[in-house]
């Protein structure tokens, strides 16, 4: 069921409660967000603010305590082929070659082997892994593993791409290259993307809108429009507007971290608060 003119992805007051060692705590509180088709959204926030939890809820891997997720007006209850998830490093199956990792999604759907291979071949070239199809993940560098991870999520041709800190484990140069590569791939297929990261410059560089989350329980603190033209070259990271946006977001997150740690005016850290944090 498609609602004409409605958002591609709608999060409707999502809350998530966890029970840990007999104590309940809220990971997410009342998160609502509409994402348009083809939009690139980055999610940032202090660690532990529930951004990954939110992404897993959207994928259908976990069910929120309250609230709903709608894709094209249809409620999400479990993972589906309309959403592809890109995990952090090392979520590739170590016992499968790059090619067999990439075809996994189609294999599980029971598609014909020949079709899967043709599709994988396209993706291998799209993400720049040609010549490495027969390699095992441990034979690849971190950057190449994440290319394979991206290709694996793209094989099922999802409308929505959910990316959970995919470049967090990469060194600074590789990360920048992968950011530019991701934008190149995104330009060619215009998926709707939710991208979780703790790198603020990465969030700004990639996104149409940056969603800033509060500390636990995670709520939406602000949504920043990134009013910078596309296609974006890595050099925009040195423009005043870019720096300004990164600074503004950094201040918001800093406030949250301080609030969570209860850092007092003279810079003294309340250790009691850290322990419970």
């Amino acid at each position: 069921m498609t609602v004409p003119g409605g958002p591609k992805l709608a999060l409707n007051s999502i809350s998530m409660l966890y029970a840990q060692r007999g104590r309940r705590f809220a990971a997410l509180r009342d998160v609502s967000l509409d994402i348009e088709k083809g939009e690139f959204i980055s999610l940032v926030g202090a660690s532990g603010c529930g951004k990954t939890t939110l992404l897993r809820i959207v994928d259908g891997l976990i069910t929120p305590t309250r609230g709903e997720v709608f894709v094209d007006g249809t409620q999400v209850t479990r993972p589906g082929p309309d959403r592809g998830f890109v995990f952090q490093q090392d979520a590739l199956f170590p016992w499968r070659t790059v090619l067999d990792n990439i075809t996994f999604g189609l294999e599980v759907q029971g598609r014909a082997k020949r079709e899967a291979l043709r599709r994988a071949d396209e993706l291998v070239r799209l993400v720049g892994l040609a010549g490495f199809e027969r390699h095992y993940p441990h034979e690849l560098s971190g950057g190449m593993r994440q290319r394979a991870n991206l290709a694996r999520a793209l094989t099922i041709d999802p409308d929505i791409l959910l990316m959970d800190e995919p470049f967090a484990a990469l060194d600074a140069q590789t990360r920048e290259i992968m950011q530019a590569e991701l934008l190149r791939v995104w330009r060619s297929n215009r998926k709707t993307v939710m991208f979780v990261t703790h790198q603020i410059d990465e969030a700004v560089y990639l996104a149409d809108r940056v969603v800033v989350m509060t500390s636990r329980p995670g709520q939406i603190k602000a949504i920043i429009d990134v009013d910078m033209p596309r296609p974006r070259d890595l050099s925009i990271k040195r423009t005043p507007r870019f720096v300004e946006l990164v600074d503004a977001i950094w201040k918001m997150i800093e406030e949250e971290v301080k609030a969570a740690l209860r850092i007092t005016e003279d810079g003294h850290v309340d250790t009691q608060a850290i322990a419970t944090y």
Partner: protein
Amino acid sequence: MANVAIGLDLDLQERESLGARWLRTHASTLRGLASLLVVAGVWEVAGRTGRWPLILAPISDIWTRFLELASSGELLKHVVVSLNEFVVGFAVAAVVGILLGITIASSKAAKDVIDPWVSAVYATPTVALAPLFIFVFGIDAPSKMAVVFLLAVFPIIINTATGITSTDQIFIEAARSFSANKVQIFQKVLIPSALPFIVAGLRLGIGRGLVGVVVGEFIGARAGLGYLIFKSSQGFQIDAMWVGVFLLAGTGVLAVSILQRIERRMAPWRQFELK
């Protein structure tokens, strides 16, 4: 020979002398061989002194006895009997062990029912039951097969179950995000992830299974390597006893290397982890 040919081929490109290259690529094999030869030499000399006639027969005497036993066909008979007992017992243990391990790992209820038995029986020295098996299954092969099975099956059960339950959650989640169903997750994630554990269990099972053959044959048998060892030591034929011991050691080495070859075929990604 094939290795030398390949070595020569690469040599032309790398301009390293054939001898030096051969030494370098075979260094670890050569060191192992040298170690064996030195011990064999010491053994031979110590045996020749004749000071420990009940323990050490000179290597050359053991070799002579080996040739005698081999040419008379007696040795082949013993080897065939023991091998048959071991292979059948171990094969049944492998199949039952892997299936039970999978059952334990995939059902909480099955785990609750089976686990106490596994823990209790694994912890007790089950070879103690070997005499009982001879009463029940007779003096020939079936009783030894049962002993081999009983000894080998537990490490296989435990390793299979551990391998499956210790699968990294992220792989299961990745499969779920592609809408894989339970059977697919089992086939395509849990089993391949557990494979190295299963192979390790089989390797432990080989060692324990060989112990089972020998102990079973010590207690009551009419043929087999364990029987040969037992009978020879009773008759103070120390050289014949050593022939049996060496053959058993060789069988163990052979079985483990076959398993390694199978593992390399089935789990090629593991080679790199092991390096």
